[in-house]
């Protein structure tokens, strides 16, 4: 379970201050497929980056399974991301000089899994994503939908408890977008926390929870 309490983030520049998040309070439970919606610049990605431990909150707290993440040092945050978080991004963030197998294998290598276990897991997730025939392909040889499936496989391979998806369907056509949302929904059904940032209201119908941000404030929740 993730508890977000009075979380705020202020970006300071020489000239002014911009409040990206303003006292956000949310509780997210295992099995939740939470959609964070709102206009561009409302703080969606900032929230996701804080939850991923990539960005420091200005004030407030959030804890995962009772452990305060905002108080973690850099090494602990790396460990938190490595063991608990899977991140899916709009631009896929695949390494172009590695093939599909190597891209999915990377988080498993980082977690120092044995070679055989890595191999089994890569094959398992490729099969789940129906991408076995592309095992030796390089990202540039794949379509947008295929790249996103590989990105999802990479995020899931190390069995994280939290999946953070930042506009995962932003670069995809309607058909591929629908398939990706179905996959994310299935992950949530398996007891994981899935938090998806999107501005596409058509996709949120498949999420079991929705929060709307307006100018960094929580405007609606369901």
């Amino acid at each position, binding site marked *: 379970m993730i508890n977000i309490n009075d979380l705020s983030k202020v970006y300071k520049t020489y000239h002014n201050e911009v409040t990206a998040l303003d006292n956000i309070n949310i509780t997210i439970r295992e099995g939740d497929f939470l959609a964070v919606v709102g206009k561009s610049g409302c703080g969606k990605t900032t929230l996701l980056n804080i939850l991923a431990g*990539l960005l420091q909150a200005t004030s407030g707290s959030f804890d995962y399974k009772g452990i305060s993440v905002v108080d973690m040092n850099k*090494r602990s945050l*790396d460990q938190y*991301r*490595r063991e608990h978080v899977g*991140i899916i991004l709009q631009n896929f*963030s695949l*390494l172009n*000089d590695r093939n599909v197998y190597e891209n999915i294998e990377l*988080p498993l290598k980082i977690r120092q899994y044995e070679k055989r276990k890595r191999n089994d897991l890569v094959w398992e997730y490729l099969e789940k994503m129906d991408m076995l025939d592309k095992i030796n392909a390089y990202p540039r040889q794949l379509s947008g939908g295929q790249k996103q499936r590989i990105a999802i496989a990479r995020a899931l391979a190390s069995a994280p408890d939290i999946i953070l998806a930042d506009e995962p369907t932003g670069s995809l056509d309607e058909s591929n977008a629908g398939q990706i949302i179905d996959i994310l929904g299935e992950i949530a059904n398996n007891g994981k926390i899935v938090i998806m940032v999107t501005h596409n209201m058509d996709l949120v119908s498949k999420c079991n929870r929705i929060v709307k941000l307006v100018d960094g404030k929580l405007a609606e929740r369901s």
Partner: protein
Amino acid sequence: MRLLRKSIAYIIFIVFFTAFFLLNDVLNNYIMKLELINSYNNTPYNDHAITFLIESYEGTTLELSGIESLQLLEGCVLLKYNPQKNTMHEVIYCDKEAIEITDSYISEDQWTFLSGEKIAVVGCSSSYSLGENVYNDGFTYIVSGVLEEHISDAVNYGIFYSNCDLREIDAQSGYVLTSNNPEHVKRAYKELITWLEEKNIAIKEIDIRNAEFSDFIEYNRMLDYLMVCIVIFYVIFIYLVRLIWLRIKREEIFVLTILGYKYVKEKLYLQYISLWGISFILSSIFFLLMNKNFYYGYLSVFRLSAAVLLIALLSTFKMYRNAKYLM
């Protein structure tokens, strides 16, 4: 794919280093010539002595052993400055008339040089006197001549050894032609030019008065400024390379960060140092193979290159801490 990218990176760096060595080589030669001027207290030309460089292609010899060539140096002393041995000077020719005090020097005694006997000629202000032994580089030399007072302290305090065989004097060094009689110097110099011209070898006088920047800056200072400029240039260059390299690596850094890899910075820096290090070694080998006439002097080029590289790498170390902001 990765191999291709790595290979391209290595090739770029090897080309850089080879250019770096070649540039250093050119600079090194230039600096040596400046040092040469510097060694003679910036007073290379006067009535009693002329300091000059002989410009020729490598491997050319002067062959001063013939009677004709020795006659043209009559009444003079010809000293050789050896830039590879720093302050080591050699007596190429030393006629009796050029020596203030001597016990044996006459023209025929030049055959002593040909036989390779260890003889030294000293400046008038040196601590050695006639007949004394001078120990240098494991050899003993007998002082057989003391030179007339010269305007340059480098000559007055100098100890000049007779190491060379007159048949194999290279034509790539700096020389001092001096005598107690200015007329001997003028005549010998004129004849030497004519004699060398016949051999297609040119003489270049080192005259501080005609040197660049000489009206504004001392050569001593200029050397320092030149070295500082070279170091700054390389440091800036390596900074820029690092910046470009970080930009190229941005994608990998970001992916490793979101996957929670805890040694991103260390991995990054190790890769960076490996790239420089391996390229440095490969290009050193390449440079050595390219230079068939490898000699001791090149070691100083490598020392200089290695020192500059080390300074540059150490100076970039601090910067890696900010790598995350470049992501």
